[in-house]
């Protein structure tokens, strides 16, 4: 889910934090939890709150894979690409899922229903391959089953 940027809502979210630089990641997580992404409008607001340059704030947002600078789909699918999942067919699983939805890594489809993102380890390496669908963990993923479940959620 994503929402359009809203200054008042952002202010409410950020009001819970003390204005020190070490709060920047918690603030960004909170904004993303509220809106589903970090809009460009957030940058000058955070910079002014924390007495940082806009470049510094932008540098932090763009450094971390988690922070989205555009809205994601309603269903966010994270597929593990790391070695333990590779050993159990993770590469083939990911290829099948990406091909079905005609998406590349990190892409969202046109109706904004599905986003597929790479993730490097979910700690489910003993029941690989693994995925996270809207935060719910999935183990021993069979591509056909996962695709059917995502289609049912669309």
């Amino acid at each position, binding site marked *: 889910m994503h929402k359009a940027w809203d200054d008042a809502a952002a202010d409410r979210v950020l009001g819970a934090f003390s204005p020190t630089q070490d709060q920047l990641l918690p603030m960004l997580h909170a904004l993303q939890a509220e809106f589903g992404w970090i809009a460009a409008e957030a940058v000058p607001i955070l910079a002014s709150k924390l007495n940082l340059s806009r470049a510094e704030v932008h540098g932090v947002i763009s450094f971390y894979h988690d922070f989205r600078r555009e809205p994601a789909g309603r269903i966010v699918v994270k597929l593990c690409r790391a070695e333990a999942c590779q050993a159990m067919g993770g590469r083939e699983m990911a290829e099948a899922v990406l091909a079905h939805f005609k998406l590349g890594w990190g892409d969202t489809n046109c109706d904004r229903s599905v986003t597929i993102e790479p993730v490097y380890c*979910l700690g489910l390496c003993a029941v690989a391959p693994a995925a996270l669908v809207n935060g719910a963990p999935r183990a021993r993923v069979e591509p056909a089953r996962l695709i059917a479940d995502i289609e049912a959620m669309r």
Partner: protein
Amino acid sequence: MSRVFVPGDALAVALGADGVAEALVNAGAEIVRTGSRGMAWLEPLIEVEIVGGRVGYGPVSAGDVAGLLAAGMLSGGAHALFLGHIDDHEWMRAQTRITFARCGVVDPLSVDDYVAHGGLRGLKRALEIGYAATIEQIARSGLRGRGGAGFPAGIKWKGAADAQADSKYVVCNADEGDSGTFADRMLMEGDPMSLIEGIAIAAFAIGASKAFVYSRSEYPHANATFAKALAAVRATGGLGAHAFGPNSPFEIELRIGAGAYVCGEETALLESLEGKRGQVRAKPPLPVHAGLFGKPTVINNVLTLATAPWILTHGAEAYAAVGHDRSRGTMPIQLAGNVKFPGLYEAPFGLTLGQIVNEIGGGTASGRPVRAVQCGGPLGAYFPPSLFDTPYDYEAFAARDGLIGHGGIVVFDDSVDMATQARFAMEFCAVESCGKCTPCRIGSVRGQEVIDRIVSGENRSSDIALLEDLCQTLKLGSLCALGGFTPYPVLSALGYFPEDFQRKPAQNGGGLKR
């Protein structure tokens, strides 16, 4: 009525444990959500309290619940999924559970249950014997950093204790990014109180009143459980203004990363905690002298800190009595990938790699021959079965150009293409490089290109020499282990599996699997 213990661990949840719990509750059973015992192939593994102990059933699906109850599960009745007493299970009995003694057994959110299972005795002892004797215990136990570097914990703690400053910090590195590892996650979900106690001991020992736990966004379940555990401890006064005695405050704050693997490197982690890009710092100064916010900081892995309470409770000698050579104590080994019996197996150092993979792990899940084993995460070497006599300890692995790292072991069968794995190591380094130093930032991209050329068959011998040369540059010229250790998987793949780099392009479809 007999209580039923249902794992709430993310791995068990991924296999349907929430549905099992719901079915049990609907049938009127009293349930307790626990962590996981670590036998992943039997999850969801539920246990029932009967006269004489706890018996297990697994793997259980929600659909099995009615049949289990009809079979008299609540009094330990016979059923096809019956596993007997879990403590007596062959896979459990052979282990030495120190760090994971309570994991899967206790209610992770109950301070009373924690105390009933021996919790808080370590902190109590530390407060009695004082900070210097506490550090002496940790030093004499031989405990080394379980994050991967294996640095002696006692020396680190002493360094921070001796530093003069108006404030000091303990930072727990829970940014467990290595593929094939999940021990930190399991502990935070199954026995978070032992980590809280361990952090408290470290903080008391060095004179810190504030600690941070830096966890990963990829672990939403572990983070939720750990946050609840912190709240439960705070409610009893174990954290807060009088945690270490009247007006002797101590607080732990949970912080969540944002998907950057490099933040598992301690100095990048400190930068990230300060709200900056997770870029590696040059050392010196060491974090024990100038760490978080420039203050003396002990930064230790989850497992290192969670083992401290046991050492204080049972004494340094008891811990040092097990182990191998200079690697004392136990290692929670994490068996993953293509292995028949995956899971967490805690054992003293010194088992051979072959014993771990073939005897404990039971070989591959696919039933095909084992071809390669990656030890120590994405920066660890690929070992062929010809090195299965290597004892599991820090020095023995280093002597064979490998590392045990955080204890992950990923098994591959003979369908693996090692040139593809080598290329992935370079790709992963490129994706996750913090960009601070050139060998890692640019060398990893060049490394992918060189491997692509080798596989495509042009100029093979000179490109192999170039790849080896590039790996030396990464090894010697990088600031941290990301660039410095990426050569391990690449060179071990090239050295032990050269045939995978020598195929005719037609045989591999003209390129690599991506």
